[in-house]
């Protein structure tokens, strides 16, 4: 069982879905947010590495994997297309750190915080519950979504490894 599973890499501003027994991973999340979706019955997972909160605020928004709103919608659609049921999908969030503390920024919230908030908003709109999250702070995260059980493994530098 362990031998045949594939590790599918999701880059920055990228998304992908996978079926059991495959693993979805994204490396070095900083201020970006990893949105991990999972249907426990069909064991279908989806992972997006979003960079920005809102596609409607940006002129050049053709890359739907870049934004919390459009990436989540696409992920849900792709999962349903291969057999997932929307009512069963649950979400986990990771990332959204503030890597550097610039005080001169005129934004009230850091981009990391805004990304997290945007992910929470779109998931609430879609009635997808967020069952766990590990967000904020000031460090990077590498995450792995196991389609076997929906577990999300979070690796950091100097802040330990955890499963949520």
């Amino acid at each position, binding site marked *: 069982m362990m031998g045949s599973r594939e590790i599918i890499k999701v880059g*920055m501003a990228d998304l992908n879905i996978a079926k059991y027994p495959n693993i979805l991973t994204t490396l070095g999340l900083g201020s970006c947010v990893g949105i991990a979706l999972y249907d426990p019955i069909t064991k279908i997972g989806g992972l997006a590495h979003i960079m920005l909160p809102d596609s409607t605020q940006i002129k050049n928004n053709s890359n739907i994997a870049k934004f919390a709103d459009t990436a989540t919608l696409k992920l849900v659609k792709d999962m349903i297309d291969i057999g997932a049921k929307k009512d069963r999908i649950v979400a986990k969030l990771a990332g959204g750190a503030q890597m550097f503390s610039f005080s001169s920024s005129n934004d009230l919230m850091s981009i990391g915080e805004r990304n997290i908030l945007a992910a929470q908003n779109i998931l609430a709109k879609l009635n997808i519950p967020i069952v766990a999250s590990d967000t904020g702070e000031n460090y990077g995260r*590498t995450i792995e979504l196991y389609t076997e059980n929906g577990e999300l493994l979070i690796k950091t530098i100097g802040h330990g490894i955890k499963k949520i």
Partner: protein
Amino acid sequence: MANIDIDTLNTLHLDVLKEIGNIGAGNATTALAKLLNKKVDMGVPKVNILELKNVADILGGAENLVVGILLSVSGEVNGMMMFVLEQKSAHILVNILMGREINNISEFTEMDISALKEIGNILTSSYLSSLSALTNLNIVPSIPQMAFDMAGAILSVPAIEFGKIGDKVLLIETEFIEGIDHVMGYFILIPEINSFEKILLSLGVNI
């Protein structure tokens, strides 16, 4: 003024941007050599145009542990400047400066972090001031911020800025190496799109 786009840059534009890397990093490398009182070599500058999803592949991969010193640049040129050191190189660098045993690698102390920020400040300032002198453009660097983390997480900060306008990032990357103790790192200038235009025009390059 014609609008410039990452996808429409021609070889001449790229050569000019490389030359900027050459001059900027050349000055910064000289400053570093003076600080260390050692010979420091510089690689040929590269202009990297990367898809967002591949940005984290530079600097040894997304999970490579690096020290990143980032500052934002404003004035007539906008963008970001980064000074990146491999973890081990950062330790060696502060050890040389503090007069400690060179291969004594432990946790960074407050003092080390402050020293690294200051080195970043000196080196990036010399990079930017030579760029400013060359182009006659006013360039104002911010106070540097430091992070010690995965390369991907650090690069996400400038990548997000670029993500607001497109799906590609342009980096002018120059590697340097101090041969005896193997201090390796990169200077990376990440100008905003409309700043290339200003830089190129200031140097008399037609767009």
